[in-house]
């Protein structure tokens, strides 16, 4: 039964991929050749790959560098820096982009896109790097130093290899986000596959031009996933016994303290102070329209309702898969769990495009209704819920359930009184993560929102597309305020919660 449900969830997650494959077969080879092998696609490929490569490189340097300073050096104010370095996650990338372009209209270049996207996404590398540093026994580093290695050599030969898996994971996350990024890049006029799919959608709805570009985009995602698996390699980093970790002695920076502080300040200023400052400026001097409190309140209400519904639905969908992955380990469970991850790696624009078409053709009764939008959210954010649910199931031994049964508790009563209370924290955390992701979701919402439904992200988008920066600002502020609690949680526990 659970397996069937989990299979249904996996099937849902794979709908977008299935749609792309079917559409490609429908278009036929000559159609594919005509729509894919053309100069425009080559331009987009060049644009997309150089942005992905550049952003990943910048994020790796910023993320690992900042993590080293915070976790291993004696730079002053390490706790404060840690919070400030996670905080940019509260500013959605498209809001960050808006902040920069509205201050500096000439920012629509490769360098501008690289900077804005890197500043938005470097915490994806920073957080796993911090977690990996924390899990690393300093004894290894001390031994290396005792054997005569310099701080740099210790970093390169001892710490970096140990960080490899965590940092590669972060890098993959950055790459997938850049591939899927729509709002930020559209605003910076930097065309990638995702923005081009949207342009095609605007010109042809779900015509073959849009689907074929989406197909190329999906291929790029798959290439990335495979590359990450290969790069991860098969070396083992775990110690035989957990042992007691040695106390950390931070590296004294000496004369380098000043430059290190300067670098951290610059990073935080660019990633946090600029967007917040720009928002504050447009809030106070925005002339495009007075603040319409009623509309803002309604839009916030709609957004919160959608996010809450999506959180409930997605966590419910995550339960069978998370349960199966722990209690019925095996190839089938792994396959079902991985399928949902694969489905979620597909960019939101492709998921939306697929669901529009599938709902028109297969379930017209649901077409343009909230359930379809919620299904898109579920496909996008299932991994967040599954990871947390799975962790919760892992921590609740089946013994409790058996004991309750032996004491005569019925199945529903065991579920209600034993299982769910044990899983509640995990389920709650998963739901919260989905909730916050939905609050700032733009791309899928633009395509799938029911007639008459406006969310914070789409209201912000329509105002800022018309260059009415002042009118857009309040929506951005609400989104940032709603996202802030999540970043606090993330900064407290760097090991948990950060998945696609």
């Amino acid at each position: 039964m659970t397996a069937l449900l989990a299979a249904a969830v996996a099937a849902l997650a794979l709908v977008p991929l299935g749609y792309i494959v079917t559409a490609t077969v429908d278009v036929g080879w000559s159609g594919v050749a005509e729509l894919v092998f053309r100069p425009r696609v080559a331009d987009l490929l060049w644009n997309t790959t150089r942005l992905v490569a550049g952003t990943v490189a910048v994020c790796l340097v910023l993320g690992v560098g900042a993590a080293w300073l915070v976790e291993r050096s004696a730079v002053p104010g390490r706790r404060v820096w840690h919070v400030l370095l996670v905080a940019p996650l509260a500013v959605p990338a498209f809001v960050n982009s808006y902040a920069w372009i509205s201050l500096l209209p000439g920012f629509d270049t490769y360098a501008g896109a690289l900077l804005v996207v890197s500043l938005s996404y470097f915490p994806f590398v920073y957080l796993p790097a911090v977690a990996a540093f924390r899990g690393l026994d300093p004894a290894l580093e001390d031994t290396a130093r005792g054997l005569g290695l310099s701080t740099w050599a210790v970093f390169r030969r001892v710490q970096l290899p140990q960080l490899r898996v965590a940092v590669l994971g972060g890098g993959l996350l950055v790459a997938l986000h850049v591939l899927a990024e729509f709002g930020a890049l559209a605003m910076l006029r930097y065309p990638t596959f995702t923005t081009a799919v949207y342009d095609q959608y605007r010109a042809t709805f779900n015509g073959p031009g849009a689907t074929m570009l989406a197909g190329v985009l999906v291929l790029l995602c798959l290439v990335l996933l495979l590359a990450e698996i290969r790069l991860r390699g098969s070396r083992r980093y775990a110690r035989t016994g957990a042992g007691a970790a040695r106390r950390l002695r931070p590296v004294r920076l000496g004369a380098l303290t000043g430059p290190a502080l300067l670098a951290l300040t610059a990073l935080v200023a660019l990633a946090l102070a600029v967007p917040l400052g720009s928002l504050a400026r447009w809030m106070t001097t925005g002339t495009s329209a007075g603040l319409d409190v009623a509309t803002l309140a309604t839009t916030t209400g709609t957004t919160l309702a959608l996010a809450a519904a999506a959180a409930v639905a997605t966590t419910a969908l995550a339960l069978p898969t998370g349960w199966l992955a722990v209690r019925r380990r095996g190839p089938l469970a792994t396959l079902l769990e991985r399928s949902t991850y694969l489905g979620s790696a597909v960019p939101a624009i492709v998921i939306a495009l697929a669901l529009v078409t599938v709902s028109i053709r297969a379930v017209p009764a649901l077409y343009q209704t909230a359930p379809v939008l919620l299904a898109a959210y579920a496909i996008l954010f299932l991994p967040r819920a599954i990871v947390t649910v799975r962790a919760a199931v892992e921590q609740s031994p089946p013994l409790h359930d058996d004991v309750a049964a032996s004491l005569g508790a019925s199945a529903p009563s065991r579920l209600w009184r034993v299982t769910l209370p044990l899983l509640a924290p995990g389920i709650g955390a998963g739901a919260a993560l989905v909730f916050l992701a939905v609050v700032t979701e733009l791309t899928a919402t633009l395509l799938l929102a029911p007639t008459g439904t406006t969310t914070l992200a789409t209201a912000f988008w329509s105002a800022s597309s018309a260059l009415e920066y002042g009118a857009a600002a309040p929506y951005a502020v609400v989104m940032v305020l709603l996202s802030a609690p999540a970043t606090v949680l993330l900064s407290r526990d760097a090991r948990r919660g950060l998945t696609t």
Partner: protein
Amino acid sequence: MTTPARATAAALSALALAGGLTACGDAGATDAETLTVYSAQHESLVRTMVEGFTEETGIELEFRDGNDAELANQIVQEGEASPADVFLTENSPSIDVLDREGLLAPLDQATLDQVGEQFRPSSGTWTGFAARSTVLVHNPAQLPEAELPASIMDLADPAWEGRIGIAAGGADFQAIVAAVLALRGEDATRAWLEGLERNANVYQSNTAVMVAADEGEIDAGVMYHYYWYRDQAENGLKGDDAALHLFGNGDPGAFLSVSGAGVLASSDQQEAAQQLVAYLTAPEAQQRLAESTALEYAVGTGVASAEVLPPLDTIGAPAVDPGSLDQDGVTALMQEVGLL
């Protein structure tokens, strides 16, 4: 021993899901007294023009806003099951797509009579309800009047490389391409688009084109007139240094684009839908358009457009049958040259 528990957990999660979905599904429910309007025209303009409709008729309106071609193709895909009752476009090529597919119901003759003949197709299946003229926006400090191009076709010349801006992804620019296609034929249009692909910076919107021209990022840009006039009415917040150049002389660059309104044949509220289109084209609504800050041209017989605009008979627009513009041909050509 735990199998029943798992089954219950599964059932519960399914229930929770269903509950969540139904709760949301209700929001989208419609009743008989609500018309669903797919609208690609600017929200503010449409809302101004339909003002009073609900009070007068008791019919509620629900809008799905989008882009011309997106909504047209969407209605084609939806076919008979389309929730749309009325379709309002920003430019006519998209409503023509529906006309050719036979998806539009004939409009009442009384409605058609409210609008000048040049603003509607001979088929009588849709009508214009507003119009906008193509202009070249430029910064006189950077591009003096003497150096202005004589025709929009000149912009494909290598001399303009990197100096012009267009909003290629938008329906407005695509309608202008449709006019070029109708007036100059496929080969000339392809050559022109190839030139633009090399010469032009592509922006997300007409406003962005205007701001770029104002700030000297580009020498000139193609857009519609009302973006500039609206901005001037707001004291030139975005384009105070920009000026307009009208091509005139029947040049494709003086194309007057018509916003179309039509009733879907698949609508089960024919009467109410016809009422809405009649309302939009009636002298009162046209007068509201003329007096509003939208600053698009009114097309109602006997209604004068806003005074700040150059009168329609002075702009030298080329004669283009609004029913003859080919959206699909434009998309194919633009994909071919790489502008889409």
